[in-house]
């Protein structure tokens, strides 16, 4: 179960090299995403995570909001 974090912690972890991953579908990612976020839609996470993400760096996933 991923650890839940808030905005300040996101910024701190990103400053230390964490990878940001947006799991929303394409149009939403393309319209707006957090700077530097990698696009990995939820339905592709299992198949593509290994090739897209660096295993040595922390990963922070996010979507639109808490819903």
């Amino acid at each position: 179960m991923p650890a839940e974090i808030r905005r300040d912690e996101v910024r701190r972890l990103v400053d230390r090299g964490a990878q940001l991953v947006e799991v929303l579908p394409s149009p939403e990612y393309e319209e707006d995403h957090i700077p530097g976020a990698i696009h990995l839609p939820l339905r592709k996470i299992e198949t593509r995570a290994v090739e897209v993400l660096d295993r040595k760096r922390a990963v922070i996933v996010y979507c639109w909001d808490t819903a």
Partner: protein
Amino acid sequence: MYDYVDGKLDWMAAGLPTEGTNAMLPRAGNTARKDAPTCGLKDRLGEVRERVRTQGWDSVVVVNEERVVLGLLRSAELDKDADLVVERAMRPGPSTFRPYVSLHEMAHFMVEHKLENTPITTSDGRLVGLLLTKDVLEAMDKAK
């Protein structure tokens, strides 16, 4: 693995930058005047009035020590008795909008409600700036 549970909406509501096709579109947060005057609840109205009108403003946002918006003083409120404290003169709890709201949406709302301006705040109520209707309409004209 971490989960930023509040998500992109929280990020944008805090007025933080984004990337993408919408990132360069004019939004409330970009166009709001960051130099809008502010004052505290216990300030004397007469002093506030003199200060802001000298600077060329006719509206003031009432905030607490953490810049959380508490009220608004527009022209009608600023013209009240100089000895009043701001808390007694202000319009409490004004409508506020988030930085990511499009100017198109703001123009529609502000014109419909005949507002000269409206505070733009983060999701925790902190002032980002004061959005003026004339700035919104000018920006939309330029974008045509």
